[in-house]
């Protein structure tokens, strides 16, 4: 099953928190160069899904295959990072007292990140070019010398996305990127993720249906730890069970 070209393949995954099944026999497949949005009500297991992929949470059953045949269960978080899975946390996690440029410079993938090579290392022209390109991609071209802590909330989120893509991951996990953003920032974030999807596979967790409609090609709906529906936005929104879950739980369903 796993050799049909998927970048991440989860089969029968169970995560058990003292009897509560955060993920219950979950099957989830994302293909290369896909931008996948995962939605679902609170407690549906969305963040747990990302935790399982990046090694933070260990499932009690199931398989998690990255790329062709790389089993991820049992690997440490930093090993999984090195395999090529980057994660953008929900709250912005950046280095507030360094400049935007240095935030990106430290995140850039390099052959060695040991103390002594870092002590002696200088940037090559090619590395600087990569950082500059990323600065432009994330819309912070004019802020390279600014202290990252002084950026707006939205800019911090973009900076962290830039930090993650400079690690050159083949799979990008993004947890609620637009929470707390203005409408304009939300729209820009959508465009950013779409442009990144040309080179990376991306899994986005989101609550904001407006945003989901803007970026999604295929949406996966989680409920009580399993996938209950998967397909285009239109298909998902017209699905009876999805409506049932959302109506009464959320005020606005845009259904």
């Amino acid at each position, binding site marked *: 099953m796993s050799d049909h070209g998927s970048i991440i393949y989860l089969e029968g995954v169970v995560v058990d928190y003292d009897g509560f099944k955060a993920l219950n026999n979950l099957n989830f497949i994302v293909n290369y160069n896909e931008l996948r949005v995962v939605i679902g009500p609170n407690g549906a297991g969305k963040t747990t899904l990302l935790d399982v992929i990046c090694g933070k949470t260990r499932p009690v059953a199931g398989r998690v295959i990255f790329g062709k045949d790389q089993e991820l269960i049992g690997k440490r*978080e*930093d090993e999984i990072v090195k395999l090529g899975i980057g994660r953008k946390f929900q709250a912005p*996690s950046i280095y507030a007292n360094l400049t935007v*440029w240095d935030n990106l410079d430290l995140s850039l993938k390099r052959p060695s990140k040991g103390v002594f090579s870092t002590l002696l290392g200088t940037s090559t022209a090619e590395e*600087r070019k990569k950082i500059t390109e990323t600065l432009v991609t994330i819309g912070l*071209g004019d802020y390279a010398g600014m202290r990252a802590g002084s950026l707006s909330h939205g800019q911090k989120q973009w900076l962290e996305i830039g930090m993650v893509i400079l690690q050159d991951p083949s799979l990008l996990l993004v947890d609620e990127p637009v929470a707390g953003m203005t409408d304009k920032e939300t729209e820009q974030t959508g465009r950013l993720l779409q442009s990144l999807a040309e080179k990376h596979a991306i899994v986005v967790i989101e609550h904001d249906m407006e945003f989901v409609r803007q970026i999604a090609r295929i949406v996966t709906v989680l409920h009580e730890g399993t996938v209950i529906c998967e397909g285009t936005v239109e298909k998902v929104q017209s699905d009876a069970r999805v409506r049932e879950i959302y109506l009464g739980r959320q005020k606005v369903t845009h259904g």
Partner: protein
Amino acid sequence: MIRSLNMLSHNHIPSASRADVGLAFWIAGFVLLILMPLLNVMPAEDSWIHLSDFSLNRFGKFLAFAILALGLDLIWGYTGVLSLGQGVFFGLGAYCMGMHLMLTIGNESVYGSELPDFMVWNQVKALPLFWKPFYSFPVAILGAILVPTAFALVFGFLAFRSRIRGVYFAIITQALALVAWLVFNRNETNLGGTNGLTDFKQLLGFRLSDPGTQRALYVLTVLCLGGAYLLCLWITRSRAGRVLIAVRDSEPRVVFSGYTPANYKLFVFVVAAALAGLAGMLYVPQVGIITPAQIGVLPSLEMVIWVAVGGRGTLAGAVLGAVSVNLGRSLLTNYFPELWPFILGGLFVVVVLLFPDGLVGIMRHLKERIQNMRVTALSAEEGLR
């Protein structure tokens, strides 16, 4: 575009420009290395600009402390790892040097024995084996740096591997200071017990009571401080220095960026220990005594206060804090000896609450205000035209 971005990336020190730091370094170097010794040697002793032997010697002690403060600033100010045990590394360096000085007293001692006086007093018949290498001056010098370094390497390795951080690290380093104090206090340790090591006579044949010897030790201390400062400056301006700040800001993100924070913490902890050892080594011949009271819990805490008062994460602040707090202590203990602990404690509270960036922060703030006033004055003039 690319070019302008690169320029920005190299001028990333926000508040103090490189030119400012360079200028301050050369001015401080001139005052400490040339002006102060000259004021000691040249003017007549009753002249108002004459700097007494006592004052110069006292200043040498402060500058030795400043070397230690630089190391503490690396581990605490930059990396955010609070060590309350720097006195231990200082003590290890100081005792290595002190042992050598004890052995060079020879039969000039009170009891006229080749053995140090306290051993005669404690009825130790033969020199303990671990004392023997310290007959050699090079061994003492190397030991003063390498013993604290090796100790920090082992201790830090265990602590950081076990992911001990934050207040837990502060507590175990404080426990370490207490343990060291207890061990050095015991007569069975054969390091002079409560009275420590003292009554030194000479170093490499030069009499320690001779002002010329003390002046040379002062100059040596200034040179070591300059070297230590440049070393720390180099570390903090390298990419590794930015990793240290990143560890302080967001350690989980550092892991996700592919670094191993434990290795970076161990590296600066060891550098800080080596600098503390160097400070101890320079302190002993200038002050003439080292006792457990100078390496325990309280002195280790005071060292933290120096850095806090001067301003964390600035290097210059560490030097400034070590010198100014100790100068304040020297002056104030003359007048109000019993009040000093309260003054020191009060100072710490005031700094933490009101001036979290210390003296350096205050100076930067004043500088910005002056610049702003200039800008406003200029734009007002423009407006008049």
